[in-house]
């Protein structure tokens, strides 16, 4: 068992995948000698050379567009978008092209590729280096959307993503890159896409989350258990699309109470879909309204430290909301 950070988990798995599969390429801004602005590709350029670790022009539309072409020819590009905030110039290529190639050609063409993007706040990144952008992609048929938050899950899901026959959005919370450490087995394993993980068992209420707020939810749950004896079950979605409704519904059957937490702003966030499904299909199991806690409906996280704290749905806020739900 090696202990790794999230960042090391990404980097080591990228290296492993490239070693194993010659069709894998890495492309993006500064992924080469610089090793990526977060160092997620450090050492790969030296190891695999400029033909497999490609420093692209500063042009996201073509990072994805050219990546699609590579995929059509049988490569499996792993495209890095430097910050998730900057994925939108490529939105048309992702939505109208990558996600639709298979369906529009009745399966004649497909574009297996991975799009990696660091996302999220808590890093003094202000409005344009803190965005959570997953909800724009989970709405799109044809994409897989993953957001693992521990080294173990990152390794297992990145390995699976690298075999998927369709485009995968792979979101990495940048605040967690060096914050989270965890054990990664030496023996090879994979994690299926679409499988949530119960990170903390509990019977009083269910908390559903991913990313930074997942870790904060666990913290809040632990505190609440110690302080007030309330036992929350914390589900880590890991995969955002498709949703693991089996795991979610099983937990709701047990607890009858659900809180969904994400960092992205509330309105139209991915929590809405989760809440809507639970409300529709678990109506008779619910002992309380499905609650959501999310970032406020402002355009991303402000820069000044107190304002950033105000934005982030961290443990204290989650705990308060859990208590409200428990007491319902």
């Amino acid at each position, binding site marked *: 068992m090696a202990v790794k950070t999230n960042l090391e988990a990404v980097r080591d798995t990228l290296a492993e995948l490239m070693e194993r599969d010659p069709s894998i390429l890495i492309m993006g801004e500064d992924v080469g000698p610089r090793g990526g602005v977060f160092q997620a590709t450090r050492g790969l350029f030296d190891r695999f050379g400029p033909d497999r670790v490609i420093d692209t022009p500063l042009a996201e539309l073509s990072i994805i567009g050219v990546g699609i072409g590579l995929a059509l020819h049988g490569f499996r590009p792993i495209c890095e978008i430097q910050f998730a905030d900057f994925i939108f110039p490529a939105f048309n290529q992702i939505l109208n092209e990558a996600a639709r190639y*298979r369906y529009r050609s009745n399966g004649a063409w497909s574009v297996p590729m991975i799009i990696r993007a660091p996302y999220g706040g808590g890093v003094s990144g202000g409005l344009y280096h803190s965005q959570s952008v997953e909800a724009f992609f989970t709405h799109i048929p044809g994409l897989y959307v993953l957001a693992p938050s521990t080294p173990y899950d990152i390794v297992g899901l990145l390995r699976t993503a690298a075999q998927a026959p369709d485009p995968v959005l792979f979101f990495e919370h940048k605040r967690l890159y060096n914050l989270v450490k965890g054990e990664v087995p030496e023996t090879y394993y994979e994690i299926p896409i679409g499988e949530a993980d119960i990170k903390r068992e509990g019977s009083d209420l269910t908390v559903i989350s991913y990313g930074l707020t997942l870790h904060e939810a666990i913290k809040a749950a632990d505190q609440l258990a110690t302080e007030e004896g309330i036992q929350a079950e914390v589900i880590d979605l890991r995969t955002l699309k498709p949703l693991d409704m089996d795991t979610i519904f099983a937990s709701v059957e047990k607890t009858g109470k659900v809180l969904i937490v994400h960092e992205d702003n509330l309105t139209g966030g991915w929590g809405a879909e989760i809440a809507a499904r639970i409300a529709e299909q678990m109506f008779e199991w619910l002992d309380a309204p499905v609650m959501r806690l999310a970032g406020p409906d402002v355009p991303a996280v402000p820069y000044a430290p107190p304002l950033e704290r105000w934005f982030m749905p961290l443990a204290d806020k989650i705990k308060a909301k859990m208590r409200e739900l428990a007491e319902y």
Partner: protein
Amino acid sequence: MARVRTAVRPSEHLSVDDLLQMYYYMVLSRKLDERMWILNRQGKAPFHISGIGHEAIQVAQGFAIRKGHDWFFPHYRDIATCLILGVTPLQMLLALLGKEGDIFSRGRQMPEHFSYPEGKIVSLSSPVATQIPQAVGVALAARLRGTDEVVVVGFGEGSTSEGDFHEGLNWAGIYQLPVVFVCQNNQYAISVPVSKQMPVENVADRAEAYGMRGVIVDGNDVLACYDVMVEAVERARRGDGPTLVEAKTYRPVPHSSADDDRSYRSREEVEEWKRRDPILLFEKALAERGVLSEEKRQEVYAQVAQTVEEAVATALNAPYPPVSSANTGVYGPFDRVKRSRYSPDLIM
């Protein structure tokens, strides 16, 4: 009009057979296309977008590339090229009508959204210019794999205003990739004339900004187009880098079956261009070379008419795709996805 004359003229080495084949495809494309308009006007086809008037450059590019080896990202008008690369008139008509045998999309896409893997014709979408960086990606792949495949990508002059054009050509220039960009400049993007689309006279004038050759050719002269295309394709194959080819042509019909072009251009202008119809021009050239007798000409037209009418009859009688088909194939089969009982969002 061709401002760049090619030094070599591969068209001079075309055999009589080749020339008649080219002629055949021009006529086939035209007659099929006209028939598609009629089906639309009869209310039998919801939509059609036409290649009429653009056949010279289309046939030229079809003959300049290695069928099934080189890649083709078509412009939606490229009916003639697709026929050359192996799509049958019947397949075109089934797509027109959204019938079961639509090989492009099985009735999902509008007509003329070609896709034909056997001919390396890559599936086309509607948002213009998106195919340009994708074509560059295929060319990069060919380079990385060390093959000698060439990629040809088509688009209209209006599409060059999109960021996709810039980003794609920039990459191709940086890596000097084996790709030929073919712009069918037909003077209009729906109603918008070139003068409101770009501040330069020629699309090809922009090639230099991307470190590549730009070539302007008379897009209605199939042999001139052939010379330019062969040179560009073979340069790309040799590793001498990309070319931006601009074929000056005209669309003598409305933009699509949904358009009415009378509001934005004069009938005189249209008639003027019809006098330079690519088929007329080619017939004259062939006659001059003694390759096309009046008898042969009529034979071609008769053969085409029969081919088209048979295909129309079959297509009209063909069934639609089963409704259940629309609910499949958003995702490819993948056994490492947990399928949740309740999850509606994953249609395999």
